[in-house]
Structures are given as structure tokens and as C-alpha cells.
């Protein structure tokens, strides 16, 4: 294919991620916290709990309640965003819960809540995926029993070319077939996917190619998460 000749807007290869920054333990008052950045997209996550859940009618006597809150800060985008939750933030909070819950052992803490706060400090597309990566690290850091880490990245299409980790500029691409944004979260050491969100058009027969691209990218993300988690423990 034309893989080698294709150049992306910022000069990356089609399967190349933006530079990753991962840090753990950035918020001293939280039980667990982490920062994850894809290039200019920066997400921080704080985990509190397991702790008492209010209102009490939301308590589940069989397992813990996972409560995620995604917040795109008003200064994170070039045009100031009206602060506070909106429909988009609510949706992303919900899908983040669904992306993380399958790896967590929520049965160990009945009647409690695990709060996950995700703040996007700087947005350049892929904020939900950066948020999930940060939240996954923060949950591990909080000592919550979990099967595995969750890695997340957006793959997609710019005209006919498959690319991974889209920037805002690539997401807004209008020529040819336009742009496709396919946010995917994956359980690191198995072939389970916990988030699939498609925005745009894609041919069914190339979805498997996209997943392959994502699997490669997730390996890189997993290594970065692992490194960050191991670094906080001083020898």
C-alpha cells in the first residue's frame, strides 16, 4: 500500500503516537492520582475511595459504585468553553465508567463508592482516551484490586489512510472521505475491548485493520503506564 509515502499533517507515521507523558501521584490529597498526556492533550485523574456513598439510595449492597466525572476545563480549548457539566461531559463520564468497570473488582467493597475525577487541562482531540488512560493508572495507584490496566487510544481515517491518535486538525479534515474518529479502550493483556465509539464513516472490512493498529498503539501506552507506576516507588 501507500503506507510509506503518506505523510500526516504533523509529519508522524500512520501508526505513530504523539509523545506520551505519564506520571503517577501528582495529587497528594487523593488516594490515587495520575497524569496522562498525548502531545498537547493533557488529562489528570484523581481517585477517592472506596468511601461512603451519598445519597444513600444509590448504595448497592452487593458491590461498589464507580462514579466517574469527566470535566473539560474552560481554558483547555482555544475558544473558552462554558464551565460546568454539559451533555457531552455526561456522556463521556458514563462511557468512562463502562470502560473501566470490567477490570475493577467492585464486589470487594459493597455499599461504597469509588470516585474518579478526570480533568482535561489541555485539549487537542483524544481527551476521553487520555482520560481513561489517566484514570486507569490512578485506580491502580489507589490500590484498588483490578484484573488489568486499561489502555485507550483513538484510531481513525483521514480520507483513505488509516491513522492512530488523531489531533484536532486531523479530526477536522474535510477533503475526500473526510475524517473518522474511532475511540477504543482495551484491556492491556487480553483481547477485550471496553470502549468503542465511532464518529464518522468506516468500511466494515477495514475495522479489523483499525483494531490491529490500536493493539500496537496500546502496547506502547501500556509500557508508558507501567513505567510511570513503577517509577513512583523510590528504591
Amino acid at each position, binding site marked *: 500500500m501507500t503506507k510509506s509515502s503518506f505523510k500526516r499533517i504533523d509529519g508522524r507515521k500512520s501508526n505513530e503516537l504523539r509523545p506520551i507523558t505519564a506520571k503517577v501521584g501528582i495529587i497528594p490529597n487523593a488516594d490515587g492520582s495520575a497524569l496522562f498526556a498525548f502531545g498537547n492533550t493533557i488529562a489528570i485523574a484523581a481517585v477517592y475511595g472506596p468511601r461512603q456513598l451519598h445519597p444513600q439510595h444509590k448504595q448497592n449492597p452487593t458491590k461498589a459504585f464507580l462514579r466517574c466525572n469527566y470535566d473539560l476545563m474552560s481554558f483547555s480549548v482555544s475558544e473558552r468553553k462554558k464551565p460546568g457539566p454539559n451533555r457531552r461531559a455526561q456522556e463521556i463520564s458514563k462511557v468512562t465508567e463502562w470502560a473501566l468497570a470490567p477490570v475493577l473488582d467492585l464486589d470487594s467493597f459493597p455499599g461504597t463508592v469509588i470516585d474518579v475525577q478526570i480533568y482535561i487541562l489541555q485539549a487537542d482531540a483524544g481527551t476521553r482516551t487520555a482520560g481513561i488512560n489517566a484514570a486507569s493508572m490512578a485506580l491502580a495507584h489507589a490500590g484498588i484490586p483490578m*484484573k488489568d*490496566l486499561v489502555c485507550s487510544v483513538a484510531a481513525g481515517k483521514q480520507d483513505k489512510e488509516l491513522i492512530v491518535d488523531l489531533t484536532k486538525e486531523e479530526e477536522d479534515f474535510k477533503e475526500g472521505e473526510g475524517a473518522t474518529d474511532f475511540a477504543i479502550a482495551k484491556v492491556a493483556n487480553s483481547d477485550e475491548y471496553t470502549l468503542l465509539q465511532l464518529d464518522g464513516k468506516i468500511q466494515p472490512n477495514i475495522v479489523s485493520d483499525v483494531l490491529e493498529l490500536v493493539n500496537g498503539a496500546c502496547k506502547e501506552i501500556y509500557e508508558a*503506564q507501567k513505567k510511570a507506576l513503577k517509577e513512583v516507588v523510590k528504591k
Partner: protein
Amino acid sequence: MKKSIKEEQEENSEFNREPSDSESVKRVVVVPGETIVSGEDYLPGEGTRRINEDVVASRYGLAEIAGRVIKVISLFGAFIPRRGNVVIGRVSDITFRGWNVDIDSASAGFLPIEESPRFINKDEMDQFLAIGEVVAAKIWNVNARGIDLSFKGKGLGKLEGGFIFRVIPSRVPRIIGREGSMVNLIKDKTGCNVTIGQNGWIWIRGSSISEEIRARKAIEYVAEQVFIDGLTEKMEEWFDKNK
């Protein structure tokens, strides 16, 4: 009097007690889902599970390979209450059956009125324990409705004077040390009374503020050190340096 608390704390931390020197112990940081060792010879302990041949970590922390048993000790995170834990908490409310105690965990602690050593008139409960006062108590039951506390045991009860501060709860076994060696060293060197709650709250009362602060600094230093080989000896050096 304080000695008995220490003894009880040792019983409580039985499951994350330091292994003795004779066993060769390998410690390595692991993340959830990471394979620690593989082979049928190893047994998965706390914080691990077996997937086919491999023993895999199910939480983030320090994996200890002591003989055949593998376990993962958490290094961060909130306090998970267990029966028998000694905790320090603050009275948050008075009901007509007892006192609600905030012990910094997922469910609130409850201290029944029967725990008072003498008869208390129901409308004079705040004379024994008022809202905002700090107590050391033992968890004698954890159930879905809450945590029941008890004063049965020497050294438990209302804490007066001194101050309390907080460390990461999972570091408490390190601060107590093997058979209480670390906390005894800190007590000897500073002459302070130290009560350590498994929930990470620590109460210090000494003869002078400067000694209390020194004890606090020593405890915070211990809590920072994760790899603990020969830490008691290291602490003696630390005390020589920080006179």
C-alpha cells in the same frame, strides 16, 4: 499501658507481617495484570491470582516472593477496615444508642453506649465523649451497615493532649515494624507516647513540642521508605543525625 495496644496491632497485622530474615525475600514493584512468576511451584497469595501457569498481580504494589508463596502488598490507597484493627477516629455525632466515629474509611464507625466504663445518663453522653473528641478503638465487627467499635483492650479510649496526623494507611505495618521494633525505637528515642491506628491516623503526646515534632518527622521518614531491608538500623542513624 500503651504496650498492649502495640501487641494487639501486631496480631492485627499478622497477614502483612514482615517475613523473618531466614527466608530469602525478593521484592519487586508490580502493576495489575503483570505476571510475577510462572510455574506450578508457586502459590498465589493475597493480591494475586493464577491464570494458567502464571501468578498474576491483581493490584498495584510490592510483590513479595517468600519461598513458594507470592503476595502483593499495597503501597497506596484508602484504609480497608478489618476486624481486630485498632483505629483512631473522631466523634462525629451522638445518637441515643452510642457515638458515631469518623475513622476515615468507607463506612462510619459506631461506638455503642455500653462501651462506657460507667453508667451514663442518656442526656449526658457528651460528658464522656463529646463531638470532635478523638478516640482510639478496636474494630470488633464489620458488617454491611457499618463498623462496630469497642474500647475493650488496654490503652483504648479517649485520647487527650498531643496531636494527631495522617500517613498512608498501607504504610502502617512498616511504622510498627517487626514485633513493634520500629515504633518502640521511636518511642525510646523521643520519649513520646505514640498510638498508631491501622487507618493511618497517628497520635503523639510527648513532654515537649520539639520531641513530638521529631517523632512525627521520624514516622513520616519511615513511611517514605518502601524497601525496608534493615530500616531499624537506618533509623538509629537518622536519630543520630536529627538530634
